[in-house]
């Protein structure tokens, strides 16, 4: 929800804390502020209202009230003074008929005659524009203002285009409506309409139709302030794929009590900004079949203390409830409030505990340690064996991978996939491992795995149910003949089988991959007494960015005189190659006695070149190699082979 700081400030007669302070206070005690955006001498505050606040805070007054509570300052009922008027009543009668009070909880209609449609005053235009809304005309802008002020969506119809009746009823199958933005929408019997008895005027709570649309020469209007069933609006909006500012508020549910207040301020505003000397205002016609209940809710300081975990005193509860301007009384140790109409989120004791806690300040909560668990913690066989298997495989040089559950073909299909290639849930791990093997074989040098060896634990999904599987796979990069994939796989399975003490039956046919049903695999194995949490590997490693550019491989071998060490050779490479060599591997060392009796040691290095910001060229890499060669050959007795 985006709100204007200046608008909020008007509730406080311009004495609100500054936007940065509001950001701090709301974030720590109320709701997250996602951004402050300076705009037209104002600041747009973007507050993240979650469903509990969405009943009351999808408007400036709701947010202003939160600011008032967290900053502990009083605020006015409205952001501006709505001028009272005394003008003659219209004699025109309006009837409001609601066919089903479950879906239309309340409908207030009112006729206003002899208004003048025109541009809005600057203050109103500015307010709307700051919030990214387009100014349409004074009547429409006034309805939007009221929604943004107190959260009640409003609507205005041209009354000369309809009779004297508003009928709220369901559409009939096959019926259509053309919306204000000229879209034709097919209706069905589950969609609630505002009608004049015959013609559809609006899709209730979602969008107006063009039948009784206001025009520049409209003189007489009917105003609507209504409340509809949130589930109905949500389902309808989803089905006809129209989401509006109004539907958002209805589907989040708000009190039907504010409808009359909204009608009152809208009327005053229209008389003020669109009134003429001839303007006549009708009585409100209030049809209110499903009246909101008044709810009493209590909590004691002791109960609040036990939920929050700090000592809350009676005086704290009093102070906090007063800040909320709750109407409360003390009954025994209970502070009983009459829940404000808007606060549909306050329904159980714990809701009040949260109000007390967040205003008291979560920062004042001190740790209370939990008692030691006196019962023996059960060892989960699945977790224990997974770790055991991992450790066997790490020792054999395997790495673990995690692949996507989503695949192109399978048995369990998604109703709403991200893409056609990810439409099904995987039925095996093998297919994913194949791709991983293929992928990683290309990077064999980069990942320092002459032979790619991987495994995965993961769930697979079939019509028969969800299973937990385990698979291992091996792949030789192009050019590597030995050891053979199958031999290494068979040998690994043999080791696994021996160390676990179970015979392994693979469920797939591939030569280089073995997949197992993990649950069946460990079924017959004994329980494990303890988890193995012992230290393994290097936990100090931190991530190095992965370059998206191709890498190049160069080998260099050099004969060096006796006494020259590996480090000496490497330091030459390091000095000359710089940042572009991302890995180097000593892959061969031998010492040879020459005919003249001198002993020389050959060091052979494989160098991997890669840049983080470009594709390297052969010339570039060759130039570096030439430099390294020259430097090496410049040393007495060194000879690059």
């Amino acid at each position, binding site marked *: 929800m985006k709100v204007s700081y200046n608008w909020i400030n008007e509730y406080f007669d311009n004495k609100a804390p500054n936007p940065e302070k509001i950001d701090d206070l709301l974030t720590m005690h109320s709701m997250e502020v996602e951004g402050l955006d300076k705009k037209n001498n104002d600041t747009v505050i973007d507050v993240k209202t979650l469903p509990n606040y969405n009943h009351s805070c999808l408007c400036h007054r709701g947010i202003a009230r939160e600011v008032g509570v967290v900053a502990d300052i009083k605020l006015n009922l409205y952001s501006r003074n709505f001028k009272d008027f005394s003008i003659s009543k219209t004699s025109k009668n309006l009837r409001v008929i609601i066919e089903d009070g479950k879906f239309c909880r309340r409908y207030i209609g009112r006729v206003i005659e002899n208004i003048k449609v025109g541009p809005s005053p600057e203050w109103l235009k500015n307010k709307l524009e700051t919030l990214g809304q387009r100014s349409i005309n004074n009547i429409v802008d006034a309805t939007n203002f009221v929604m943004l002020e107190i959260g009640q969506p409003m609507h205005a119809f041209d009354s000369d285009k309809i009779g004297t009746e508003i009928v709220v009823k369901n559409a009939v199958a096959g019926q259509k409506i053309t919306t204000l933005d000229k879209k034709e929408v097919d209706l069905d019997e589950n969609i609630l309409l505002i009608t004049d008895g015959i013609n559809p005027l609006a899709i209730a709570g979602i969008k107006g139709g063009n039948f009784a649309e206001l025009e520049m020469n409209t003189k007489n209007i009917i105003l609507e302030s209504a409340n509809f069933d949130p589930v109905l609006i949500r389902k309808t909006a989803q089905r006809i794929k129209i989401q509006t500012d109004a539907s958002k508020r209805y589907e989040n549910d708000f009190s039907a009590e504010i409808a009359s207040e909204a009608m009152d301020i809208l009327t005053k505003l229209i008389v003020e900004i669109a009134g003429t000397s001839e303007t006549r205002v009708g009585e409100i016609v209030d049809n209110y079949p499903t009246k909101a209940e008044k709810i009493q809710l209590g909590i004691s300081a002791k109960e609040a203390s036990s*939920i929050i975990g700090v000592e809350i005193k009676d005086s704290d509860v009093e102070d906090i409830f007063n800040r909320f301007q709750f109407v409360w009384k003390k009954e025994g140790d209970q502070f009983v409030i009459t829940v404000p109409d808007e606060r549909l989120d306050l329904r159980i004791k714990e809701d009040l505990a949260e109000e007390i806690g967040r205003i008291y300040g979560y920062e004042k909560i001190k740790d209370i340690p939990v008692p030691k668990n006196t019962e023996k913690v059960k060892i989960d066989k699945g977790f224990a064996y997974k770790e055991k298997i991992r450790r066997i495989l790490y020792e054999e040089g395997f790495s673990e*991978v995690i692949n996507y*559950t989503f695949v192109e073909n399978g048995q369990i299909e998604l109703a709403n996939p991200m893409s056609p290639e990810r439409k099904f849930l995987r039925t095996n791990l093998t297919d994913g491992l194949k791709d991983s093997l293929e992928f990683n074989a290309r990077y064999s040098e980069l990942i320092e795995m002459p032979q790619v060896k991987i495994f995965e634990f993961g769930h697979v999904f079939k019509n028969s149910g969800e299973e937990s599987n385990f698979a291992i796979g091996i792949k030789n990069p192009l050019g590597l003949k030995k050891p053979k994939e199958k031999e290494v796989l068979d040998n690994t399975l043999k080791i696994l089988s021996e160390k676990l003490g179970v015979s392994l039956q693979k469920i797939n046919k591939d030569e280089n991959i073995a997949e197992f049903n993990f649950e069946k695999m460990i079924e017959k194995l004994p329980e494990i007494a303890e988890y193995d949490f012992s230290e393994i590997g290097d936990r100090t490693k931190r991530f190095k960015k992965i370059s998206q550019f191709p890498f190049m491989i160069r080998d260099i071998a050099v004969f060096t005189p006796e006494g020259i060490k590996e480090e000496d050779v490497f330091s030459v490479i390091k000095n000359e190659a710089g940042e572009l060599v991302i*890995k180097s591997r000593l892959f061969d060392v031998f010492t040879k006695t020459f005919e003249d009796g001198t002993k020389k040691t050959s060091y052979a290095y494989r160098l991997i070149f890669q840049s983080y910001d470009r594709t390297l060229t052969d010339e570039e890499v060759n130039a570096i190699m030439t430099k390294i060669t020259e430097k090496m050959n410049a040393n007495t007795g060194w000879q690059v082979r």
Partner: protein
Amino acid sequence: MNTNNSDKESVHIHPITRVINDINKIFFEMGFNLTDGPELETEYYNFDALNVPKDHPARDMQDTFWIKPSKDMPGVERRLLRTQTSAMQVHYMEENKNPPIRIICPGKTYRKEATDATHEMQFQQFEGLYVDKEVSLATLKSVLNVFFDKFFEKDVDIRFRPSYFPFVEPGAEIDISCFKCNGGEAGCPVCKGTGWVEVMGAGVVHPKVLNNVGIDSNKWKGFAFGGGIERLAMLKYGIDDIRLFNSGDLRLVNQF
């Protein structure tokens, strides 16, 4: 420049596995049971039992992958990929109706959202649940303090900010003090200079969740918390793209 001048094959541990094992170890030492469950869930376990009302905007807080109804099983309850490990709370409590309860459940979760460097449609979460007589935000805080200190291997502070999750009340977002710059260094890549890092959601278990599984909420209270495992791995190891974890890419795994 990285050099590996030995032929000895070193042990590589997937950062996600490392994080899950650290979580498991720390909570196990605090007396928590490790538990696991299905990724394919019914609407009941993922939403209804967790006090997320039907046709309520709260369900939009997580975009859900729904399973296409099977023609062979008409009338069967709608199924989905779990959007949160919180569903495990319900499974476990149904099987273990006699508190005290202490569980930790790491596992895969799924949400239908556009992927980028910080968003994934498949990721892992860990869920903790503690049910006992004396339970408050203060006991929750103590457990999380122990966890984060041990996990980041240094003394970090914790703060609660009000938030909303349908299955807890009160509910809070949990921030930890920045373990990288220790408090609001301008330009810190981890906390963006705020000094705090958002790491999980938590709260006191909503009485309806306990009552739904047949645990008397007048006698017992609980706290629950849940956090993203990839997020912790990214923070701890400085990994810059969440999509690396599920791509079977050893250029990531073999760095660790």
